[in-house]
């Protein structure tokens, strides 16, 4: 029993990432009708927002500290972060420690800006072009973005730790009444899951309580009529894309302590995210989220030692297998609308 709960928990962090990326993908596909192969790159850029801010916060200059001496007897040259100078040492350290969560504030405008730029500059020209063209041009864009990041940040993963307060693990089992130390789970992953739930909730609330998505969907179906109604559909399309980009970026920001950001993490997540979207049902937002979590947990179960003994390597291919089976038996996915994109 403990093992099962542990595996479910294990699947939550990756599942949350899948769910968030799939959510953005579905927003773009379901409302704008665009297949965005650059979405993984947005996830990656979000992660590198955290890296950038972390580095920015730690920009320091050399100061000669008379009170300390190095091993030669000369005054010690110390690297003092500017943050320390502004906020004092203790607060400065706290700020540096909390770089990742603080990056959220930094990432939101950056990601929205990037999303808007992408939509205005590129995506909007591809609304009426066939899906294959959209895939190709966003694939090219993903490569370009990936290479730019690789150029500025190098090819190696950049560890970006979580705040001290969230390091270490939480004895989940004890809280639930099980024996202590049977189910332990890292704090930060719990935080990530909560964060993801918050974003997902926010997006759904936004969709539920405004007419925004309805208008955008109508615009996708019949642009001219919506415009004749006096609605600036272009602005809304742009906003929608910016929103989706922000969701992907935020998913990336908070994921950095779990998996050190590197330039190809976008591509790594992209393939699986598309698979998730298809399993959930293309165009279905609840489907995307549900499928993201389910497949994350499924992958986790497939990684269990007992399972791997029986079916070696199953953990790598389980998601693809499920996708293939679903695509063949129920092409609209778990929650897709019937008749959408069926042949």
């Amino acid at each position, binding site marked *: 029993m403990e093992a099962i709960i542990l595996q479910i928990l294990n699947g939550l962090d990756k599942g949350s990432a899948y769910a968030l990326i799939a959510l953005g993908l579905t927003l773009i596909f379901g409302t704008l009708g665009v297949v965005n192969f650059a979405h993984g790159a947005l996830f990656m850029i979000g992660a590198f927002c955290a890296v950038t801010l972390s580095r920015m916060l730690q920009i320091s200059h050399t100061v000669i500290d008379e009170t300390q001496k190095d091993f030669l007897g000369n005054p010690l040259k110390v690297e003092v972060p500017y943050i320390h100078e502004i906020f004092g040492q203790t607060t400065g350290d706290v700020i540096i420690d909390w770089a990742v969560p603080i990056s959220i504030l930094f990432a939101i405008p950056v990601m929205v800006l990037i999303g808007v730029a992408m939509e205005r500059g590129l995506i909007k020209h591809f609304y009426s072009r066939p899906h*294959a063209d959209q895939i190709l041009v966003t694939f*090219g864009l993903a490569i*370009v973005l990936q290479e730019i990041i690789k150029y500025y940040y190098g090819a190696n993963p950049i560890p970006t730790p979580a705040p001290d307060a969230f390091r270490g693990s939480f004895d989940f089992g004890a809280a639930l009444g099980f024996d202590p130390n049977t189910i332990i789970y890292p704090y930060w992953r719990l935080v990530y899951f909560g964060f993801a739930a918050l974003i997902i909730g926010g997006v759904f609330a936004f969709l539920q309580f405004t007419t925004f998505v309805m208008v955008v969907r109508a615009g996708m179906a019949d642009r001219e009529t919506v415009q004749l109604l006096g609605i600036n559909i272009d602005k809304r399309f742009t906003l929608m894309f910016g929103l989706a980009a922000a969701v992907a970026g935020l998913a990336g920001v908070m994921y950095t302590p779990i998996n050190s950001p590197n330039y190809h993490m976008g591509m790594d997540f992209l393939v699986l995210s598309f698979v998730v979207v*298809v399993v959930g049902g293309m165009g279905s937002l609840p489907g995307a989220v549900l499928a993201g979590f389910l497949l994350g947990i499924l992958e986790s179960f497939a990684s269990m030692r007992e399972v791997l003994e029986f079916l070696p390597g199953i953990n790598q*291919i389980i998601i693809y297998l499920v996708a*293939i089976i679903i695509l*063949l038996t129920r092409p609209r996915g778990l929650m897709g609308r019937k008749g959408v*994109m069926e042949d």
Partner: protein
Amino acid sequence: MFGLDKKHTNLLLLVFILTLLAPFILNPFPEGSGMAQFNAGYPDLMQRFVIFGIFAIGFNILFGLTGYLSFGHAAFLGVGSYAAMWMMKLLTMNVIPAIAVSIVVAGLFSLLVGWISLRRSGIYFSILTLAFAQMSYALAYSVLTPITGGETGLQPKITDPRILDGASDTTPKANLFGLEMGSSFEWSVGSWLFTFNVGYYVAAIAMLVSFYLAIRIFNSPFGMMLRAIKSNQQRLNYTGLNARPYTLAAFVVSGMYAGLAGGLMVAMDTQVGAERMFWTASGEVVLMTILGGAGTLIGPVLGAGMIKYMENIMSKINSTILHEWFAFLPDGLEDFVVTLIYPFIGKGWHLTLGLIFMLVVIFLPGGLVEGGQRIARLFKRNKPSSDTPDGKTTPAE
């Protein structure tokens, strides 16, 4: 000739001559000169040109004609490679059986993948092929290690059975009835150096045959049906034709081409690894086909050549060389220009590739072939035609 009309016979002849004379054409710069690093006429690169040309020609038969975008063709390349390697380990280092088996095995595998994936179309089809490719890669990397060698891959070893070859105490080399793939004949003419490599010519012959077959397919009713599928699949269905076997046939044919390319790679390199099947390798052939011109005959070959050239040559340019080129500029300007160009060459050439690809998809979807046609039309318009006496044409009916 060979059942082709004049236009296509000329095209085939042109490609034949180009591949025959490639060692000359690709090595225009004298050895030791500043531009020598731009020479492409060395065995490894020439082999890659024609092998990836084959891969792209096959992919074009599926994507260029039917419009079905597969992201999984690297899996067939990999399967062909593994099959060829096993033939070399079990039977003989003679490349003929290896190549033959690579085509057959890849064909069978693509039959399976295609039969399942083509049950859906459009983006679903693409994602299905992607899923299969990643699955194959994951399996090759981990589970099927006895067959694939996992991370290390496979190489021929002295201890291999090689039933038809008999025992040998030296490292085995791939050969064509005794003629080693790796052997080359070098010819110095003045300060120029030309290399004639056996492996290259073997692969080039394979490419010419592949190209010829592609021409036949393009001109056949079968090829026309494939184009009709891309143009209006619904109309095709209602005109009494079943699109499914046509697309499956195109898929299998393109899979066999990929297998051939994989087998030839092994014949040249005598090694194979799982990374050959990663989905971005599939992305590479998509890039080549579109860059060159999807749906045209010569396009994929051009695209393959261009990308492989950039991969090998562009990636060698570094900042020292850039400084050499721009040394004629005043220092400050020189540094500025080098800094500007630097991210786009050397290790950053993928960036250039991605940008060019995006530009092609956005502005020139017909690739290099379309670009060439547009330029040709510019020249034709500038020349006044001598047929029309006063420049006026007869009024339209």
